[in-house]
């Protein structure tokens, strides 16, 4: 039977083995790794699919106006999922990789929006759209690393809808925003009927497309502890086409004193592990050293020790090479922006 005449579910079945990659995971050029996580198809299609209409399985839609109301819904409804920007969830629903009974749309909750700078931290509401953050003067002033990274997140049309909270909860290993949060040692505020708890990002990120969120929890806000205003930042990623998920990327922050000594360094990699990866060895190699090209090159050499995944897009060896090159470039940019000519 020609593929085009098959119902969608069977097309997905046909397509699925082709997407399997070397380590048993599954990746797709467009939506990176969501097939891995949902690789076993839930074929409990509850109805027939009429061509051209209604790809997702049926669900009840809820649009709470208050955070408390959303928490109640998540706690009480069976098989409920949060809809933030929907730019990763809705594709998965269209493919029926995800089938839910209830969708709780956070789009109408005013409390989940806003940017606030106080007490040495930048707080970002979970439902802030990526495009709004990209254009925000506060982000540009206080967190230019994030502003630069956002230009690489998906496309303008997806950034117009996609949110920071959605990106963190989705936790794609090739995503930029989780890496920025890792670099900043962000704190994620998770809300539920039990209240709000603060989760350090190193605990929030919990492996491949996994987070520390319970099924009834949602991200309310993200805190980024601010660095000194004259700290430098650098961000580089490599993708085959602009807007695609990166094969690998690096985000760097450097705080350098007047004598050119590194007081503090952060280097986060993405696309090379199950989640964002802080390269602690590189940070330790830089801290306390005079910042010059040799120091950067030696620090970035720590990327040689990582063991990235291989898949249909790139081998682990190539990703390791990219990680080292991109780390070097990100650190050079960070150094220059911190006022050190390397």
């Amino acid at each position, binding site marked *: 039977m020609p593929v085009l005449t098959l119902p969608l579910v069977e097309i997905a079945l046909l397509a699925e083995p082709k997407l399997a990659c070397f380590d048993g995971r599954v990746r797709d050029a467009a939506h990176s790794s969501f097939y891995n996580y949902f690789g076993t198809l839930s074929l409990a299609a509850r109805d027939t699919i009429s061509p051209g209409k209604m*790809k*997702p399985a*049926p*669900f009840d839609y809820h649009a709470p106006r208050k955070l408390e109301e959303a928490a109640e819904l998540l706690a009480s409804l069976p098989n409920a999922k949060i809809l933030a920007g*929907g*730019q990763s969830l809705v594709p998965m629903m269209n493919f029926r990789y995800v089938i839910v009974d209830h969708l709780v749309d956070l789009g109408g909750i005013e409390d989940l929006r806003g940017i606030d700078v106080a007490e040495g931290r930048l707080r970002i509401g979970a439902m802030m759209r990526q495009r709004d953050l990209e254009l925000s003067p506060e982000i540009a002033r206080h967190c230019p690393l994030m502003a630069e990274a956002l230009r690489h997140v998906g496309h303008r*049309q997806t950034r117009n809808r996609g949110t920071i909270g959605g990106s963190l909860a989705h936790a794609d290993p090739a995503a930029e925003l989780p890496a920025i949060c890792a670099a900043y040692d962000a704190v994620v505020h998770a809300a539920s009927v039990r209240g709000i708890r603060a989760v350090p990002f190193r605990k929030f990120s919990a492996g491949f497309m996994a987070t520390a969120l319970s099924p009834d929890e949602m991200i309310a806000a993200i805190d980024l502890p601010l660095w000194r205003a004259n700290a430098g930042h650098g961000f580089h990623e490599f993708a085959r086409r602009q*807007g695609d998920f990166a094969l690998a990327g690096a985000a760097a922050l450097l705080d350098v004193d007047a004598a050119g000594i590194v007081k503090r360094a952060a280097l986060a990699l993405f696309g090379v592990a199950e989640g964002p990866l802080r390269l602690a060895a590189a940070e330790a190699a830089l801290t306390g050293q005079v910042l010059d090209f040799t120091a950067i090159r030696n620090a970035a050499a720590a990327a040689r020790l990582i063991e990235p995944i291989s898949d249909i897009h790139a081998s682990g060896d190539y990703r390791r090479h990219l990680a080292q090159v991109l780390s070097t470039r990100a650190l050079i940019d960070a150094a220059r922006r911190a006022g050190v000519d390397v």
Partner: protein
Amino acid sequence: MGKQATRVTVNGKSHARVVDARLTLADFLRHELGLTGTHLGCEHGVCGACTVLLDGRSTRSCLMFAVQANGCEVTTVEGLTPDGGLSVLQQAFVDNHGLQCGFCTPGMLITLTELLRDNAEPSEQEVREALNGNLCRCTGYAGIVAAALDAARQLRAGTGG
């Protein structure tokens, strides 16, 4: 399961419907309102053919549900087209060979409408970056980029349309 009322203003006209919650905005536009200018290519957010303006911002209409657009203003390619003619941008597509089969064109026009509204004098690089979420399999993009730059010139000079 999952019926919901939604009211969406499309190209200036308000439409109230009770729809399945799972009905995408794209299918709402095409099947409920008969506005088939919005094209569906991939239906998972990759090709950009279904791009519409949602409250003035380019949005993939296959990646949101019609119920989410409740209270919003949507502009489709039909809404970009003046009565009895083509817009400056549309005419520039004709003049610069910016389309061949035409399938991607609605999404291209919507995306470039947003770009030219926000940036009257985009560079070629800025046009290409804006278009990175819209796939065209015919033109190789050169004609589309030329059309965008041509339209921007005409709009700045006030000579178009």
